[in-house]
């Protein structure tokens, strides 16, 4: 097979086009993935309990477009999240940061669990003690009955 200069140029052009398409696709996929990731970390302000990723509202669509534009402009994830926090407040985040008063949201379930566990252990210990006392009092009754019987026999 003879490969002349023209064929080499064609091969080079075709290879370049294919590699460029692949690179662009990968880039688009990566941007879409990041848009989805950031959208999941933001709550849609006009929806109840839905993240921007889950919502189809106009505002959520605007959020997604802005996230995409900002990513393409080279902004980092934190910069984009801060941009939304500046406009909508920290409550726009789907997971509130564990700082200040919001720390309670994170600590309260652990505290309740811990307190519940202590109460359960105390309850089990108390139950065991009561059972032991009942058992002991039954044994004492048995002994007293025997003493009564013996005394009756003496009479």
């Amino acid at each position, binding site marked *: 097979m003879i490969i002349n200069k023209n064929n080499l140029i064609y091969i080079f052009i075709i290879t370049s086009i294919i590699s460029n398409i692949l690179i662009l696709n990968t880039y688009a996929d990566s941007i879409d993935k990041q848009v989805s990731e950031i959208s999941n970390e933001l709550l849609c*302000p006009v929806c109840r309990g839905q993240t921007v990723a889950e919502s189809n509202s*106009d505002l959520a669509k*605007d*959020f997604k477009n802005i996230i995409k534009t900002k990513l393409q402009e080279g902004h980092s994830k934190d910069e984009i999240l801060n941009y939304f*926090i*500046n*406009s*909508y407040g920290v*409550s726009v985040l789907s997971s509130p940061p564990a700082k200040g008063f919001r720390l309670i949201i994170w600590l309260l379930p652990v505290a309740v669990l811990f*307190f519940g566990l202590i109460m359960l252990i105390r309850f089990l210990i108390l139950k065991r003690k009561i059972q032991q006392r009942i058992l002991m009092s039954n044994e004492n009754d048995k002994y007293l009955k025997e003493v009564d019987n013996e005394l009756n026999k003496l009479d």
Partner: protein
Amino acid sequence: MQNIKTNLSAILTFLAIILFILVMYLALFSKNTSINISPLVGKTAPSFSLNTFDNKTIKLQNLVGKSVVLNFWSSWCIPCKDETSALNRANIRFKDSDIVFLGVNIWDDRENALTFINSYPSDYINTHDPLNEIHVNYGIQGVPETFFITKDGNILNRFQGELNDSILNYYCNQLLNNK
């Protein structure tokens, strides 16, 4: 020893009840600041470059030295129709007070917006954002929503919902009294 244990148990139970009541109170009665108070209040107003419907550009930086009433509206929004007359009246009342009234059309298409403007004519300038970003920059959650920007470019207040004469008087006078 037994007494100490009993006391400790009583204190723990009491604390748990107090904590539960506190959490329930905060959940039920505390104001949701994310809805009522904009985090932008007291801060520098986000800059904007808006287009009028006859393609002129209005930038916030060109309005320095003037207070701005920035009203976000949509053609499909019924309270937006109802508040237009109040905005017109306020625009006339505060004409000599260096307060600029600006309408910003969002979540709309151009034709519907123009039909709205023809049906409910306003004396103040109506605009739209070609970048479709201003409403997110201002943390808009619905229409109508209005921002009151001081002469030095800070956000003095935000009002969510339909405006009327007394509300506009209140906020515009606040703008005038702000130094």
